[in-house]
């Protein structure tokens, strides 16, 4: 197995790309850091330097010191940005209210997303963060990195921005926190020309798709999550960069029903790897689990004494469909009844493996509460093969987009449109028949919206004809 980018990519070598010298990168001592105070009083933040968990304040302070000791001309935005960011954060604690204004329109030429305008509402106190825009950088699928890339990005962002990041934002992007309008285009130029790397999505765009670790390091993955994620991301660059939708649209890809990127809860299109043949069983390994030679669930529960592993209690009785049993010392699974919940496979990964005829279940419409309340995604296509170049998935997605663009109101998520128009209408649009798998239960009210063509003779009737049979 070998995957290749769609086009040749520039090879990245930090030594060739770098901005800062080693001396500049190591420009302060532990002693200096110990005595270092930022220029504002931040008592509440200093409290957050204590305790065992990594302190973002302690981290920010070393960046502040590092910047302070760099020559001013070695940074294109203000030297004090970290000081001012922390100062404003302390003020927000004091006031119990944020001090960031509504975003303005900031972006790079030709794109309608990827940069989010951000301004301080107390610029006189914290002038260096007066203009402090966010930039979203499209992360590589499942967030593996080489240090050459990360180091170059650090230099670029320290030089043209604040040197502060989110690794990563909620949607998946690398988030660059804070730069001026002037530096956005130069940064984008080097990002694309030197790092061969593009921005992610924001606004009413396709948002940066994301995926789980997949087959790279997980035995449960049923599909090539990274490849599918990369393909959809690169194929839909226009949708990702130029707003043409009623609202945001998120695509997330989970390799199995365990759902490590939570696609079912937070993506308009959720692709979840699954299989349609039988769970593979290694009966010897089953015996090894029963005999206690292999610890259940990969040792996930080893911090406590739960007693000897009991396959009846821990696997067979917990199976939601009751499709498993021990017969003549062998584990048998009635695969026709299995709903692929993953529990038995999670508990006994060395004995049980997903089948080999794999694909995706496709669900649509998940979102957070704004506005109609939170929604989980609706199972729409029970199974679809997922093989490069994934034309079947793209075709389905485009039907969904066409309908949503046509019918969706401003700021209406796909799930809300499905709610408003009804799942039957959505099925009609994408051209699939209704199936009981799509519902928890059939409707309980009898208010069926029959169509005229459903009924013999249509709806046109003559009252005179009716009165011939029935006196008033």
């Amino acid at each position, binding site marked *: *197995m070998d995957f*290749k*980018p*769609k086009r040749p990519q520039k090879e990245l070598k930090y030594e060739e*790309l770098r*901005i800062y010298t080693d001396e500049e990168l190591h420009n302060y001592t532990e002693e200096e850091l110990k005595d270092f105070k930022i220029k504002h009083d931040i008592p*509440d933040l200093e*409290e*957050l*330097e204590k305790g*065992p*968990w990594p*302190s973002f304040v*302690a*981290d920010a302070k*070393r960046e502040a010191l590092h910047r302070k000791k760099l020559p001013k001309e070695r940074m294109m935005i203000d030297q004090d940005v970290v000081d001012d960011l922390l100062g404003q954060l302390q003020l927000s*604690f004091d*006031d*119990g*209210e*944020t001090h*960031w204004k*509504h975003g303005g329109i900031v972006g790079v*030429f030709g794109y309608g997303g990827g940069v989010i305008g951000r301004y301080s509402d107390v610029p006189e106190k914290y002038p260096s963060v007066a203009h*402090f825009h966010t930039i979203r950088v499209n992360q*590589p699928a499942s*967030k*593996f990195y*080489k*240090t050459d890339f990360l*180091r170059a990005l*650090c230099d670029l962002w320290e030089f043209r921005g604040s040197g*502060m990041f*989110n690794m*990563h934002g909620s949607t*998946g992007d690398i988030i660059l926190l804070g730069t001026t309008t002037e530096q956005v285009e*130069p940064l*984008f130029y*080097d990002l*694309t020309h030197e790092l*061969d790397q593009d921005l992610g999505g924001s606004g009413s765009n396709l948002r940066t798709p994301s995926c789980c670790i997949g087959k*790279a*390091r997980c035995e449960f993955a049923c599909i090539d999550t990274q490849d599918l994620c990369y393909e959809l*991301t*690169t194929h839909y*660059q226009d949708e990702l960069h130029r707003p043409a939708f009623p609202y945001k649209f998120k695509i997330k890809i989970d390799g199995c029903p365990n759902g490590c990127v*939570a696609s*079912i*809860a*937070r993506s308009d299109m959720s692709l979840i790897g699954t299989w349609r043949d039988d769970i593979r069983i290694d009966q010897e390994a089953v015996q090894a689990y029963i005999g206690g030679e292999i610890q259940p669930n990969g040792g996930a529960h*080893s*911090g406590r004494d739960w007693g000897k592993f009991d396959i009846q209690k821990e696997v067979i009785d*917990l199976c939601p469909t009751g499709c498993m049993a021990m017969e003549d010392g062998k584990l048998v699974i009635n695969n026709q009844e299995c709903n692929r*919940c993953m*529990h038995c496979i999670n508990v006994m990964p060395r004995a049980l493996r997903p089948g080999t005829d794999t694909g995706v279940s496709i669900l649509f419409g998940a979102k*957070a509460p*704004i506005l*109609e309340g*939170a929604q*989980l995604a609706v199972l729409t296509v029970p199974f679809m093969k997922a093989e490069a170049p994934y034309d079947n998935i793209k075709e389905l997605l485009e039907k969904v987009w066409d309908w949503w663009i046509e019918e969706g109101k401003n700021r209406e998520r796909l799930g809300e449109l499905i709610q408003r128009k009804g799942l039957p209408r959505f099925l009609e649009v994408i051209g699939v028949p209704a199936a009981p798998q799509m519902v928890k239960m059939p409707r309980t009210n009898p208010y069926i919206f029959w169509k005229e063509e459903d009924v013999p003779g249509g709806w046109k009737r003559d009252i005179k004809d009716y009165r011939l049979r029935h006196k008033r």
Partner: protein
Amino acid sequence: MALSQERLGKYNPEKPTEKRITDIGPRHFWEFFPPVIQKNYGKWLYHDILEPGIMVHVSENGDKVFTVRCGGSRFMTAENIREICDIADKYCDGYVRFTTRNNIEFMVTSYEKVEALKKDLLSRKYISGSYKFPIGGTGAGVTNIVHTQGYIHCHTPATDASSMVKAIMDELMDYFTGMTLPAHVRISVACCLNMCGAVHCSDIALLGIHRKPPIVDDNIDSICEIPLAIAACPVGALSPGKTEDGRKTIKIKEERCMFCGNCYTMCPALPIADKLGDGVAVLAGGKISNRISEPKFSKVIVPWLPNNFPRFPEVVATVKKIIEVYAAEARKYERIGDWAERIGWEKFFEKCEIPFTEHLIDDYRLAYDTYRTSTQFKFTGAAWEVSRAAGGIDD
């Protein structure tokens, strides 16, 4: 080629489209996979958690990759990332990975390297004493908290995230570095109902909420598109109005407001944040995974706790209490929501000593679906209080 070092680099503002490169997408994932990952792609057979935070994955051709997982703060500086790179260069041939839940993963190919790496990681501390790279976050424990931006860089938050996460994880450290719980517990923080972190299916979710209706800026007519702002209200609480001097404004039926903040998202002239109004709702019992039970929403179990910066003691105490009771009471493999459903939510409130108030009963859309329509309930103190109030019992 090198990164540019002039003020505007190679970008020419006179000719913005000159030599422009667009729509190239992200770097391809394959180049970032360590050789052992490339070689064994799709061939992994199983994994074992050797100790909290340390996993081995074994491939069908016998290759092994050892992963050391460390908690990180999502917000991090170039200095921090460079230190991560130093470690990755020293032990991992220059490869490193971040997880969906803001953890950092270092991968090596032999157990000997694990020991050295582990020692190195745990020796790295900030001057104030906190770990830079605590090891854990695997199996039946609490892994890192996913969270949103908060006061650090967002315009709509009702609380702060980074500080709350730090305060909670400081207290839950033993659950991060241990695997003593019945199942894994996923905690999430979102600073407002926009929920860019989509926390609504977490075992425990902390959610910033507002409690005061928006206030109207004097010159709203010059700041925002009034019809768009009015249309943004899901409960029709906004309507067009006129100021005393005849300018267009917005009238608010305050008693209708559900404090979602959607109007402020649309219109900066309707600020909703307020020091005394804002705070944190606690939700529990949600899950994402399809394992055993279906994915489900988290339920609001505490309607509001104060934004007690910087350490949110009330929030931390509530989270800790739920986890401790869950740890003591739930069955192996049972998630918090499954446990609560098995014992009944009335028992959940009793055991966790959380008061049940009318705020926890849904009265928004589809609320009736959440009402109990059976006689299957358990008696708790709350039930006796109802009976007393209704004149049903004297004791």
